[in-house]
């Protein structure tokens, strides 16, 4: 089955700094999803990437999928305390299009 490795596991940054979270797969990614989770709550969908080289942005968050479709990155520009939380990547398992495999998550702390 597919495995997703996220790095770093945790990140502490000063407000205003840029940061990047990576998600690497052992297999080709057919659909890659980024979610954000606040402590003790459910996951909120951020973005989905499907094509090699694809890049999407929402406000100050940009997600990219590499050309080989095995690695994705999430970049936050000028971080704010509201960006704090756990970021998880999820991927469709091969061509099933139904169940997702998730990375372990990256805990982001933004200090004011």
């Amino acid at each position, binding site marked *: 089955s597919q495995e997703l490795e996220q790095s770093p596991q945790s990140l502490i940054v000063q407000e205003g700094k840029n940061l990047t979270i990576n998600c690497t797969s052992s297999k080709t990614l*057919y*659909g890659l*999803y980024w*979610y954000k989770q606040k402590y*003790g*709550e*459910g*996951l*909120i*969908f951020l973005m*989905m990437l*499907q094509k090699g080289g694809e890049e999407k942005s929402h406000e100050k968050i940009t997600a990219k999928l590499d050309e080989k479709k095995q690695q994705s990155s999430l970049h936050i520009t000028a971080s704010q305390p509201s960006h704090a939380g756990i970021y*998880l990547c*999820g991927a*469709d398992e091969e061509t099933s*299009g*139904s*169940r*997702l495999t*998730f*990375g*372990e*998550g990256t805990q982001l702390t933004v200090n004011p």
Partner: protein
Amino acid sequence: DVKVTQSSRYLVKRTGEKVFLECVQDMDHENMFWYRQDPGLGLRLIYFSYDVKMKEKGDIPEGYSVSREKKERFSLILESASTNQTSMYLCASRVPGWKTQYFGPGTRLLVL
């Protein structure tokens, strides 16, 4: 907006009790999922359902069962709760294909 609701946010049960966790979605999604989330282990799939009365084991089905009698409702059952089932339980639903899963707010279960 898609809404996924879970019957309880917090639950405290005793070892050996039968526990029911309910999940309801309002968008007529065919697929529904139950995960548990533990520190250091990420999200792990317990069971999922492709449609009414259909179910598939996920990665950690032992000690759990599920029921899907109606399309909008997916129940997770702990037949005899044990302390190692103390966890955060997350329900999700999805339209089949390359679409995101939508998550409920989670149920934090403590088994004493």
